[in-house]
């Protein structure tokens, strides 16, 4: 059996990739994928700890998490499609009304 450290290490790497992707990339799809990646790494942490403790609790929680992630995905994808229909772009910089034209409102 592999030691839990290996799984935790993988989880940390995935989490870091997600966080960096969220901060650096501008495409809304990549931003969304980064958030999903971070959530999945947390799932891996939960499953690993569940194994360490020798009980099923953490595994069940990671299943519940997948449902929550799916709910978020539905709204996120709907928003991305809506923004694409209006601006013809999925770049997060394409929609900047609030930052530049606040005074006109």
């Amino acid at each position, binding site marked *: 059996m592999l030691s839990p450290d290996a799984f935790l290490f993988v989880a940390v790497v995935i989490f870091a990739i997600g966080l960096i992707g969220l901060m650096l990339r501008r495409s809304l799809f990549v931003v969304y994928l980064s958030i999903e990646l971070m959530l999945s790494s947390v799932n891996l942490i939960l499953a690993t700890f569940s194994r360490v403790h020798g009980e099923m609790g953490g595994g069940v929680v990671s299943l519940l998490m997948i449902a929550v992630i799916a709910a978020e995905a539905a709204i996120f994808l709907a*928003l991305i499609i809506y923004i694409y229909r209006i601006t013809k772009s999925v770049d997060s910089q394409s929609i*900047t009304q609030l930052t530049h034209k606040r005074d006109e409102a």
Partner: protein
Amino acid sequence: MIWDLYLVMPLALIFIGALFLMLFSLVQKVELANYNLVTVAFLTLSLIIELIIFQNVEHDYLFETIFAKMFIVDKLSTLFNILFLSGAILTLLINNNYFKSRDYYNGEFFALLLFSIFGMMMLAHTNELITAFISIELASITLYVLVGYNHHSLKSSEAMLKYIILGSLAGVFFILGVALVYGVVGSTYLGDIYTYLAHHQNDEMTLLIVGMMFMMVTLLFKIGAAPFHSWVVDVYIGSPFPVTMFMATTLKIAIFSILLRLFLVDFAPIYPIISEIIKAVAILTLLIGSLLAISQTQLKGMLAASSIVHVGYMLIALYAISLGSSFAASAIIFYLISYFLSAVGAFGILSFLASDEEKRHLSFDDFKGFAHERPYMAAAMTIFMLSLAGFPSTIGFLGKFYIFMSAIEAGEILLAGFGIMIAFISIYYYFKLIALMYFYPSANPKKKFPFSISTLLIVAMALMIVWGGIGTGLIPFIAGADGLLTIASEALKTIGK
């Protein structure tokens, strides 16, 4: 079993109402006002049951045989539920005119609002971290949709985009914190975590403290405290008025319900570590919030930024809790109630005016001479501003008074002085509006007072604020300001360890 069913009734009613409205929103013939009416009916029924439950509940677990100790029912959760429900009722009724004036509202809006309330009520009942995460997500995911509800406006969509990206990121940190806590303790029940913390030394549980800090980050993000405040102003400006009102008041109370429970139960053994962080966050929140509020040109933006400042005051009391102040927790609840009354009123007037005239009454300049145009509304607005600024004889003054009292009781006189200084600064941006309303001539002729449910409620809330400030004890059998504080401290006593 019957007792449990009775305790779960308010929650179940809201859930059934949400499903009912979701199905009925497919029917095209129903008028919008009727949806509003049905929603308010469900909320009121639930509120009445909560008020009865509040009299005779002490400390119970919901369906202990099925859910173990996931859902707790005590006076604190019931009190918070009463606040959420009354917040939702007021939001819906005050915005009655606004809903009619815009064409993008439909039945689903009310269904989503009820789901959000359901999430918040679950959050108040939660005694376990996974349930807390799911209810926070339930409350937030519905709010993401509500923020972007104005599909004619790109600004609304942009606000939704900002909120959903940053909100999901905050959610990730919460579940990461939960995962780390689970890894150390092997359980996610608040009671188990407390027992673990109380029986171990600090240097044995670095991972646990890191996990709890991650959870704290999320909660501070959701209430809009300082290092995590960047979304607040943009999202509040971008979203429709009813949603802004709902976020600024009800959601904030909901997050404080879990924050207080976590802080009073779980964080108690690690107060020495966390208290300094809370102090720094409170000072930063007050400073940055004031700077933001001064620089706003739109009223909605000013109210949004000032809501950051109000969070800062409550964080002072949170810091006082960690130093052992006895009534800081009830001061927070009292402040939440006072802020809630004033903010709902102020946002209510804005939304009422916006429902009349499409583009006007959003910036400070539009309010020049407002008192000559609509004297009663201007008087109500003045009362709300005075209360937000903490002027004596309003309920806002008493709220600030209790907060600073708790800081002084904890021995933090400098911090209380700093808070009072920030309150003086806040007079600038609140009184600017009052001065603009009264000291300029009006371009438009005087208008009659429009009698509708929105305006009558606004006036009633203005009266409540004044009554809460001075009329305490004048009317027998109805709780005044002191009574509210007593109720809050009574509710806090039932919190389980």
